[in-house]
């Protein structure tokens, strides 16, 4: 039963994932092109190239992490075609459905993690910098953050009874996220010392063409190894929590 449901989830999401992959490939191509031009035209010092290559690696990590963890194609599709309601008439328990969903999610997260690793290898080679797991740690941290957001969003969206209310709730949840992100960013940059340092460096980066500034910036956003490991353990905890909450949501019936 689980295999059948995982097959279903993956088939529905494939188009969305392929579209995201295409976007990532296009962005990668542009950034590789920029890196190539920098190197071939000798436009920057070795440090600038290294800094730029690290930023590229982080950008891929964030994009890939953001794309896969925030994908809700299956939920929207199920609501749109009536499968969610129909599945309540099938011999599927809430546990069956939630289990399949989160196994699928774990598979996709793992595959994308491998993708991040593979994309970062040429980035570091071209940038003539030693391979670092920092982008992978950043990917894991970003996926953790988005998984938590996903739990909240799913819990709200599961209360939708039709596509119209689903869209309405989706807009509300999205707007709330934007407000939270802006508030967090403001709090981070005005309250925390690290935040103020990064903001200062960003101003320098905008006004000065300095490889040192670029490297200073990347050092600030590099995730240390111990944080990366904690984030990985946390990911499993969040996935399990997501499964429990999703199962609870699937147990709900229409009022």
């Amino acid at each position, binding site marked *: 039963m689980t295999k059948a449901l995982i097959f279903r989830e993956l088939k*529905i999401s494939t188009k969305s994932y392929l579209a995201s992959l295409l976007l990532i490939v296009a962005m990668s191509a542009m950034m590789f092109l920029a890196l190539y031009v920098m190197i071939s035209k000798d436009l920057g010092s070795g440090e600038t190239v290294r800094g730029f290559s690290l930023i590229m690696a982080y950008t891929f990590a964030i994009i890939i992490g953001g794309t896969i963890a925030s994908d809700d194609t299956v939920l929207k599709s199920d609501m749109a075609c*009536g*499968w969610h309601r129909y599945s309540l*008439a*099938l011999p599927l328990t809430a546990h069956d459905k939630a289990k399949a969903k989160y196994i699928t999610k774990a598979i996709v997260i793992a595959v994308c993690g491998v993708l991040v690793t593979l994309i970062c290898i040429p980035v570091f080679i071209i940038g003539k910098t030693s391979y670092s797991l920092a982008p992978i740690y950043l990917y894991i941290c970003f996926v953790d953050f988005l998984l938590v957001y996903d739990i909240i969003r799913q819990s709200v969206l599961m209360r939708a009874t039709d596509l119209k209310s689903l869209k309405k709730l989706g807009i509300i949840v999205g707007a709330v996220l934007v407000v939270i992100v802006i508030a967090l960013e403001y709090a981070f940059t005005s309250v925390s010392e690290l935040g103020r340092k990064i903001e200062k460096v960003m101003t320098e980066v905008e006004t000065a063409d300095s490889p040192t500034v670029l490297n200073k910036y990347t050092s600030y956003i590099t995730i240390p190894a111990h944080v990366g490991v904690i984030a990985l353990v946390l990911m499993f905890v969040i996935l399990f929590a997501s499964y429990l909450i999703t199962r609870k949501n699937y147990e709900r019936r229409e*009022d």
Partner: protein
Amino acid sequence: MNSYENAIEISGITKKYDGFTLDNVSFNVLKGSIMGFIGQNGAGKSTTIRSLLGITKINSGEIKLLGLDHLKDETQIKKRIAVVFDELPFHDIFTAKDMSKIFSGIYPQWNDAQYKKYLERFELPLKKKIGDFSKGMKMKLQIACALSHGAELIIMDEPTSGLDPVVRDEILRIFMEYLEDGERSILMSSHITSDLEKIADCVTFIDHGRILLSGYKDELLETHGVLKCSKEQLSEIDPSDVVSTRVNSFGAEVMVSDRASASYKYSGMLLEPTTLEEIMLFYVNRDKKEWA
């Protein structure tokens, strides 16, 4: 497998919404029979069906499917029943072959050979995306899926609405074949009464959330009739015999619920047999003295 007399037993279901209440709905579906569940749009047919399937919570009442409690034995029941909705609930990107992969994992009794036979009979392509199917093809696919795991009870919510007469006839014949062994049952809601007249053994009529009539179809058609008379003759008819009266420029048509008695009492008037559609129309307008 447990034994049971009624495939569906509903007793006193009440479900309240703002502006609508399913009020004390009770009826049974005998094992081996086809129950036609008729009513206008918004009468409560879909709400009743969703309550049966546990999709919607009810305020009170008891529901048994295949002799088992619909909530306590939910998973066991759902392995043995099938559902057909008026709109296909499968995603457009899937093919008939994909649905076989999915349902073979969901239903332990899934019969792939049977499924492929139905697809052949319905002339449905195995590898074409469902999104490219016509409405009739989509309904046939849903029915093929419903009939391919040996379901003892099939619950259908307006399965023939929006389909042309040829497709409807084909589908109705398949339902009758499916019930030939006497061990399977169907509950089919519809407002296309002509379909139910063709295949239903029993009929339950719901209006504004209440059951108005429930019984054997032939019996209902035998006991009800339409008296045709002039407007002046209306005063000769005992109001207690009247369900409701339809007037037009030529005269009046009066539905009676005891045709045998009416044929004696009103022998001077033309008394004609009726149809389920007419029964529905006259009962829906029963609160009006006369209607057009």
